[in-house]
């Protein structure tokens, strides 16, 4: 189980992150999961004195996320990596690599789940 998990909407994200920064938390990382039915889950992890706090945001395919790279500079590389591998757009990134941070142009969002094709025996 994840400790201290809080589910929020994407409009409240910047307010929550600003509160965490003023109380002395450190940014650890962000994880993106493809839930398989057109929705994505992004979980942000913060840490203070070896205790983790997690925030979870769920968005649909095609929505844009607000970026937290002006509050925490350390988040800029993680958000660029999510943009490359999953194809989710972030607004107001401090340094924007436009999809070329880690992978080349031929691959298109390689971490998304591919649709499974079922073939019946005998066809």
């Amino acid at each position: 189980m994840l400790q201290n998990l809080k589910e929020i909407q994407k409009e409240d994200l910047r307010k929550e992150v600003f509160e965490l920064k003023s109380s002395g938390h450190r940014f650890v990382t962000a994880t993106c999961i493809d839930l398989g039915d057109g929705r994505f889950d992004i979980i942000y992890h913060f840490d203070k004195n070896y205790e983790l706090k997690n925030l979870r945001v769920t968005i649909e395919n095609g929505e844009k996320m607000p970026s937290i790279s002006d509050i925490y500079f350390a988040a800029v590389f993680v958000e660029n990596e999510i943009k490359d591998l999953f194809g989710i757009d972030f607004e107001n990134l401090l340094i924007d690599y436009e999809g070329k941070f880690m992978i080349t142009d031929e691959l298109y969002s390689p971490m998304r789940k591919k649709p499974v094709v079922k073939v019946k025996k005998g066809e």
Partner: protein
Amino acid sequence: MGKRTIVPFGPQHPVLPEPLQLRLVLEDEKVVEAIPAIGYVHRGLEKLAEEKDINQNIYVVERVCGICSFQQALAYCQGIEELMGVEVPERAKYLRVIWAELHRLHSHHLWLGLLADAFGFESLFMQCWRNRELVMDLMEATAGSRVIISTNIIGGVRRDIDEEKQKFILDNLAKLEEELKKIEGAFLNDYTVKKRLVGVGVLSKEEAYELGCVGPMARASGINMDLRTTGYAAYGELDFEPVVEYDGDCYARLKVRLKECYQSIDLIRQAISKMPEGEISTPVKGFPNGEVISRVEQPRGEDVYYIKANGTKNLERLRIRTPTFANIPALVKMLQGVDFAEVPMLVLTIDPCISCTER
């Protein structure tokens, strides 16, 4: 306003162990801005981990990095053991501590050699790497191969260390400690070495905390952060203090890593003397279900694993955040305002392991 040029500190450079590109904007020999670009060794291991089953994933995860491979497998196994409720026997916990500290010794000796090579002191580089052979001999005698040792499984370890091998470990560690004392004088008291390292690349304590530094970089700036004090895998029963320095420059980072070598030798001696008898693994049945985060202290810093499983034999998502990925923003900030000739050494003080960063 001087003349501005852009110089690529390219992916191929004699001082870098792995490819990393930095675009440096220079103004009359002083660096104004640095923009990193990675992606030269991206292998897609997170996607591969969704296609192999739970036991085969241990061997995939070990090969994320060559030097810290034992701690990667340890973090993975600890996460899955927490999800399935498996209790690891005491002797296996102590054996894991011994191999983890041997890997820390190996990594710090490799870094000391590369740093000596970066400021041109080649004979010291060769001495450090000759001492590293003593550590690799120990790993081959106890576990079977020199660099990637593959001894972790879910529920314990695969091999045991008996009395004869324990004596071999203690003899080799005594030899290693003597050699370290001879080298320490050359690193810490030499006039030219000090001229190149003191006062270069200073990070204050608030900046280091805000940029998310981990590992020896954070401990050299005064932050007392070491995940081994939370007590995973028999560290709770051993007696040690994290090594902290307060200056924040390259010389402080060198001192932190040298003192950690002595601390590792001491931890291995304590673990060998306190190890109880018993089994080395418990049998495991069934599949895991749920999500968990497990964290481990690697030689380079804090390593975070996020595992999500859904009750079948494949995992749904495996996410790895390695310590070098967290130290890169600090590198970008540290490079502003230094001379061009000091860039290779500053890149090496964060201990870059780019194959971990890109997986």
